[in-house]
């Protein structure tokens, strides 16, 4: 017997309340009558039937107690028979995120979670078991009849991940395992996550109850939650390295921080962190060439994986821009401001070009184009759509990297073509004539369409024009503008550089030294970023590095943020028609007993209270004796 809502058993003391009600003296109407002669005879007549009467009165009490008990049991949602009838299937989700490697539980949280999982399977006794790991790369590690040996073997393969949970992956795997026989889904976790994830899970499991099992320790941890670098000054090589530390413990600590690069030690700091605080350390650094920076803190905390972080840097490369068209004075003048730009001009688009940015000036974009393009409208097809004179900008996206920091509503446009919204386009600037600037992203191409001719506006004369070009160049070719490549977090994917591809594909060396092959047929996307550290893409004569870090605001904070009692069910799931078949049986029983009680009271109990409660009578007699003595 499994009680899905056992806390309703707290209502059992109400049974004593029913007994108490039976012992209470009822409120009677006092009526003056000529004589009680006949009523006394009636009373004697009834008392002659006292045995039956007492029996019925006691029966009434028993029926009331049984009805209340049945009601309470209905609320506890017993599911024993349901499990037997339905060939019970349970899904267990084990949190394998970075926080589960914390050693504040012996030997670590994940091991405790595994043991808890085995205990639960033993007590739940499901016929079918599915086990899903919830980590940066969720997996279904077991689905079968619940063989202990196979489950143990599957659990042995689980190791704590280095990053946060990829919830869409978890939800997809759990959803795929749900069947009509699924009784409940159990999530075993340390609760070091935001509570909104439970909402996602509830959505995934639908009507199936979601149970939470928590394994958590004290949660004291100091970690590197961010390792970044930003340009300082006009020089492309001068940077400020930013290391952000967080102390999620209850006590203040002093942590030694070491920053080093390929050339050796860069800086050492002692960082004082108050309890539950965050602090950033800024260290100036000038990059000279390709480099890998490493930040390390020496902290005896529960989670070691976020005590190290990496950052990779490469010298910027020139940005090659191809202008396809008869020539555009304003555009060419604007691009010439940027020394990193190498501008080439052609009348036709050459096949298989590798320009980071191609500008199609009033020339249609070929269908087989791949890469990033800026399309300046004005081709005959665009003119056929017609134009609106002096349209006003009505809206623009203030957050997009291409349009931010620009006052688009200050533009004066002589006319703009009535360009329609392209399929799948994101509108960046909109006017009365329609979209002025829109972005279409497909698998292999990114196209920005400008719906007016530069010479038919005052835009090239405004400051916002070179700002837009700067945004465009950085967005299209960040490698030409930044030494530093932003590090990935565990579970992220990366597009491998085409220049490092070999005949069959790419070879990637993982932080633990093992090699992974990525076939060209599978595309340049690399997803196996389960480990934190520096990954190396190995080519014949060169190597490319990228860093994957474990720490972060969510993963380094290994304190329990999901405040649910262990063993409890999420409210959302509980109210969506849980498999409480027995609840209905008990509810019907309670209803029947209430009806029986009503019938007994109306038809059988002649004196429901007065003389038939020995306890009350005895108390009454005692009180009368005491009163007689005092009187």
């Amino acid at each position, binding site marked *: 017997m499994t009680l899905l809502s056992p806390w309703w058993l707290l209502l059992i003391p109400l049974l004593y309340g029913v007994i108490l009600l039976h012992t209470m003296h009822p409120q009677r109407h006092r009526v003056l009558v000529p004589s009680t002669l006949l009523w006394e005879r009636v009373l004697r007549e009834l008392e002659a039937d006292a045995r039956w009467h007492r029996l019925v009165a006691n029966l009434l009490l028993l029926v009331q107690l049984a009805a209340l008990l049945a009601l309470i049991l209905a609320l506890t949602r017993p599911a024993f028979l349901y499990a037997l009838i339905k060939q019970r299937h349970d899904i267990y989700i084990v949190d394998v995120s970075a926080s589960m490697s914390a050693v504040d539980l012996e030997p670590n949280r994940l091991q405790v979670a595994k043991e808890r999982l085995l205990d639960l399977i033993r007590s739940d006794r499901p016929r079918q078991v599915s086990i899903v790991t919830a980590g940066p790369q969720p997996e279904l590690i077991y689905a079968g009849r619940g063989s202990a040996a196979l489950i143990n073997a599957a659990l042995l393969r689980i190791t704590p991940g280095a990053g946060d949970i990829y919830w869409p992956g978890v939800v997809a795997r759990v959803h795929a395992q749900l069947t009509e026989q699924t009784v409940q889904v159990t999530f075993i976790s340390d609760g070091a996550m935001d509570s909104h994830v439970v909402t996602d899970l509830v959505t995934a499991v639908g009507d199936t109850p979601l149970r939470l099992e928590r394994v958590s320790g004290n949660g004291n941890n100091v970690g590197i939650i961010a390792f970044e670098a930003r340009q300082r000054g006009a020089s492309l090589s001068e940077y400020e390295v930013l290391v952000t530390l967080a102390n999620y413990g209850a006590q203040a600590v002093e942590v030694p921080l070491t920053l080093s690069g390929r050339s050796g030690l860069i800086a050492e700091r002692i960082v004082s962190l108050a309890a539950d605080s965050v602090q950033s350390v800024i260290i100036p650094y000038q990059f000279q060439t390709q480099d890998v920076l490493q930040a390390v803190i020496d902290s005896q905390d529960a989670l070691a994986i976020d005590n190290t972080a990496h950052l990779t840097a490469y010298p910027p490369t020139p940005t090659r821009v191809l202008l396809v068209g008869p020539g555009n004075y304003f555009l060419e003048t604007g691009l010439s401001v940027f020394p990193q730009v190498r501008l080439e001009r052609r009348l036709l688009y050459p096949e298989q070009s590798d320009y980071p940015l191609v500008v199609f000036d009033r020339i249609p974009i070929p269908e087989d184009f791949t890469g990033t393009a800026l399309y300046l409208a004005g081709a005959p097809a665009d003119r056929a759509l017609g134009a609106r004179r002096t349209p006003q900008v009505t809206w623009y996206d203030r957050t997009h990297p291409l349009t931010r920091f620009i006052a688009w509503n200050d533009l004066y446009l002589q006319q703009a073509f009535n360009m329609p919204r392209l399929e799948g386009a994101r509108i960046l600037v909109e006017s009365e004539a329609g979209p002025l600037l829109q972005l279409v992203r497909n698998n292999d191409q990114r196209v920005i369409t400008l719906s007016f001719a530069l010479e038919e506006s005052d835009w090239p004369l405004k400051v916002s024009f070179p700002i837009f070009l700067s945004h465009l160049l950085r967005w299209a070719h960040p490698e030409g503008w930044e030494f530093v490549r932003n590090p990935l977090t565990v579970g992220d994917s990366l597009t491998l550089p085409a220049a490092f591809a070999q005949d069959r594909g790419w070879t990637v060396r993982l932080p633990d030294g093992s090699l992974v092959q990525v076939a060209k047929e599978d595309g340049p996307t690399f997803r196996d970023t389960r480990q934190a550290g520096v990954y190396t893409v190995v080519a014949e004569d060169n190597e490319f590095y990228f860093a994957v870090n474990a720490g972060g605001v969510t993963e380094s904070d290994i304190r329990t943020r999901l405040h649910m009692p262990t063993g409890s069910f999420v409210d959302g799931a509980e109210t969506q028609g849980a498999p409480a078949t027995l609840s209905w049986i008990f509810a019907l029983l309670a209803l029947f007993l209430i009806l029986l009680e009503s019938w007994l009271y109306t038809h059988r*109990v002649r004196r429901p209270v007065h003389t038939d409660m020995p306890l009350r009578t005895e108390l009454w007699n005692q009180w009368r004796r005491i009163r007689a003595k005092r009187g």
Partner: protein
Amino acid sequence: MANKPLGELLDNRFLRQLEHLRLVPGRAATRTDMGDVASRRLGTSVEFTDFREYQPGDDFRTIDWASLARLDKLFVRLFRADENLQLELHIDASISMEFGSPTKLAYAVQLAAALGFIALHHGDVVSASVFGRQPQQRFAPARGRQAIVRLFRFLTETQNSGGTDINAALGRLAKEGVGSGIAVVISDLLDSNGYAAGLDALLRSGRQVALIHLLSPAELNPATIGDFEWIDSETKESVELAVNTETLAVYRETLTAWLTEIRSYCHRRRISYFQVDTATPVDQLVLRHLRKGGLLA
């Protein structure tokens, strides 16, 4: 009933109807004086009934001289005596009689007035008493139509007498008076000590007894359901009872058994018994039920 105008006691139409009624005496009829009622006893009226042999002490005036001449034996002539009827009206005026609408006491007073009127109208002797635990108020024996007003005045001034002890009150009344005649007891008999001893005492004293048993509709057919604490109006004792339909059924069974017990007792003692619902109009009771029951003719 205090201070109730005499005119309201019985209306004229009813009184005119009563003038045609007479009390029907049973085996006992008090002979106080020569009266208008033919007695079963042999007496001195002009109505011949029988002969018997002369016995010493017989009135010579009753010797039948013709028989002596013809048979040479002394016979005396017997005549039906004309006697006055003694009517005693005993009214229960306990507090329990103050219930009902009209109250049982008011009903009893009206009934007693009607019976008294009949008796006095025909020259019979009428006395009356009101009792509770003991006889409280008395109307001395009176005769003649001129006593009607006094009787009515006595009845209108009837007050309730507190608790009830029917046996004690009737026992004491039995020892008083002439010891014969018709004793009409009007009561609800709601006395936990019973009524039999008192009625037996009246019977032993030679009276013909008629019992008119008044009960109000609420007593005959209670319909109230709920949890009650019934308080006795006389003893102030209480009975707690949850009244439901089944309790009411038991009440009705108990009432029927009680009434049967009273009726059976009266039948054995040859007491004329009338169980009266006070919802029955007094004129209907007198003109129909009491005549049918043989008390009036």
